[in-house]
């Protein structure tokens, strides 16, 4: 791996993001956390992220809305949606807005890792495509 994957974790449950970031860091990722959609967008203005892991149900700006805005800020960033609710409607909307994957919470760390790596691979591929063209 040439460089660490830059990941932004967004969830209103701060303890969740904190521990998850530690675990992902342990697995070689560069992880930032944000406890709301607004904070996440602010982070994205300053830093470039390869993958954003986004909780769908948050107070204030929810995951789907954050996704829409995030895609405006960094169109190449891949977004993985996480939710406690298997709401098909939000899943379909998320995918339509360009989310990479949709995962049910709680999820296994290995599964999340795998998805993040896939998302990163996709991002790299798209970057290369853009560069070539």
């Amino acid at each position, binding site marked *: 791996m040439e460089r660490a994957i830059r990941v932004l974790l967004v969830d209103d449950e701060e303890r969740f993001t904190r521990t*998850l970031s530690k*675990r992902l860091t*342990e697995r070689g990722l560069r992880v930032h956390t944000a406890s709301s959609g607004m904070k996440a967008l602010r982070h994205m203005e300053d830093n470039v992220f390869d993958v954003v892991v986004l909780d769908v149900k948050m107070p204030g700006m929810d995951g789907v809305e954050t996704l829409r805005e995030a895609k405006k800020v960094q169109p190449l960033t891949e977004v993985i949606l996480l939710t*406690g609710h298997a709401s098909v409607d939000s899943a379909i909307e998320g995918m339509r807005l360009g989310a990479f994957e949709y995962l049910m919470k709680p999820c296994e760390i290995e599964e999340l890792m795998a998805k993040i790596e896939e998302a990163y691979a996709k991002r790299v591929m798209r970057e290369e495509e853009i560069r070539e063209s």
Partner: protein
Amino acid sequence: MPQIKPSSLEYYAQLKQHFVKILLSAAFIPLILIGGILYYHFSATLKENSLHYVENLVRDHQNGIDSFLIERLSDLKALSKSHTIDYLVQGDHLSEAFNILQGEYGTFTELGVIDAAGNHVAYVGPYKLLGRNYKDAPWFKEVMEQGEYVSDVFLGLRRVPHIIMAVKRVENGRTWILRTTLDIAKFSDLVEGIRIGKTVDAFIVNTEGILQTRPRSGGDLLEKSDFLPGKYAQGIRLEEKKDELGTRFIYAYTWLQNRNWCLVVRQDLREVYAALRHVNYVIIPIFIGGSFFIVFAAIFTTRQLASRIEKTDREKDMLNEQLLQSGKLAAIGELAAGIAHEINNPLAIIGEEAGWMKDLLKKEALKCSPKVTEFEDSISQIELQARRCRQITHNLLAFARKLEPKMESVSLNDLIEDVIKLVEREARVNDIIMTRNFYHELPTVWTDASELRQVFLNLINNAMDAIGRKGGITITTRLGLDSVCAEVADTGHGIAREDLDKIFLPFFTTKAPGKGTGLGLAISYSVIEKLGGRITVNSAEGKGTTFSVCLPLGRKG
């Protein structure tokens, strides 16, 4: 009707009673009314006819009797006018005259000539009356005054009932009387001939009620009759009277022309009503038979009606219960989804924390800790239990999910076969024999195959759990009227009666704690409901359980 909780036994008993009462009164009241009115009119008509009848008898015979008496009297008058007293008292002349008078009827007993002084100067007849003086006899006085006389029936000196008939003749200043007596037998024949039928009786009484003819019903000549005609009046009178024995009679009577005698015709009312009795012999059995029939029919139809009502009520109750059940399920589903969602967040944190600890344990520094295996075991337990909780919440969410089913044409037999293949190996290990009892011409159904697979997997897994070791599961498919059905029958321990109506509720489980979530059947129920079908259960404790799933044979689309 008092309010009693429907579906209770008393309610139906009362309903039945009520119906029977209404039906019986609807049948019997008009029947009895009509019967009573007809009976009344019939008997009134009979009586009226009978009254007319006796009245006519009286009218017809009144004239006959009157003219009989008048004719006899005028015969006597004619005789007195056609002869002189001198002629009659000579030789056989009176005897000749008597023969002429008798004519062909022979109604007279004797003939005599009496002079103005009352002496019987000539006589033909069976008695020795010649020379007797009648100066003081009441009839003599009367005939001298009135010119003619007809007596009542009386016995007289001869002790034989007879009627005296006498006419006065004034011949050139000489007054004499021609006297005769009527043979009562001949006279009686006239009256007694009226007797028609068994109880029509005719007789004559005088003003005092003394019988002038012999009534058939008892009583002799000159005896006092129990019928008193009252005062003379014209025309025919009708009366109804009881005799001393309580027998009711109708009477028709009229005064004869001589004003002394009354012609009476009477009829026993029993005879009048005999026709009615005959009708009764026919009507009463019909009425009784009809009554039995009505009662039987009322009870029979009521029973049928009540049982039909009971059935509809039961079906209604069942439907209500099902509605209630699905309403409950929906409410519980929403609640469950909410809870599941809320629990998922803390669960995620627990999982992550445990994962982080596990990550840390992998570090070299901690590996030398003596209790590290204990830690590892503990943490993996936390992870495992968190995963279990996650399974539960995911199941819950799946149960509450309002997914549009993915519809396709499905062969139920093939689908069940797939499911059986999944579990058959495990079944064999547990000595459970799977029997397929498939209806091979089963049409395909338009439904969601993956959901349906989940349902049958649930049912078969439950069946295997119910059996434990050694037993059989029979899976039957069949074609209903407008549905295809599959039955999963096991030889397991069955379901307790009190649990039977709870088994489709979420979180209800009879399995040991940690073994079942109590969601399998609830999810199956909601899936089958969503697919427009029905899932039902039948169980006998200790013998086994049968789950039936029926899916509608709807056309594509």
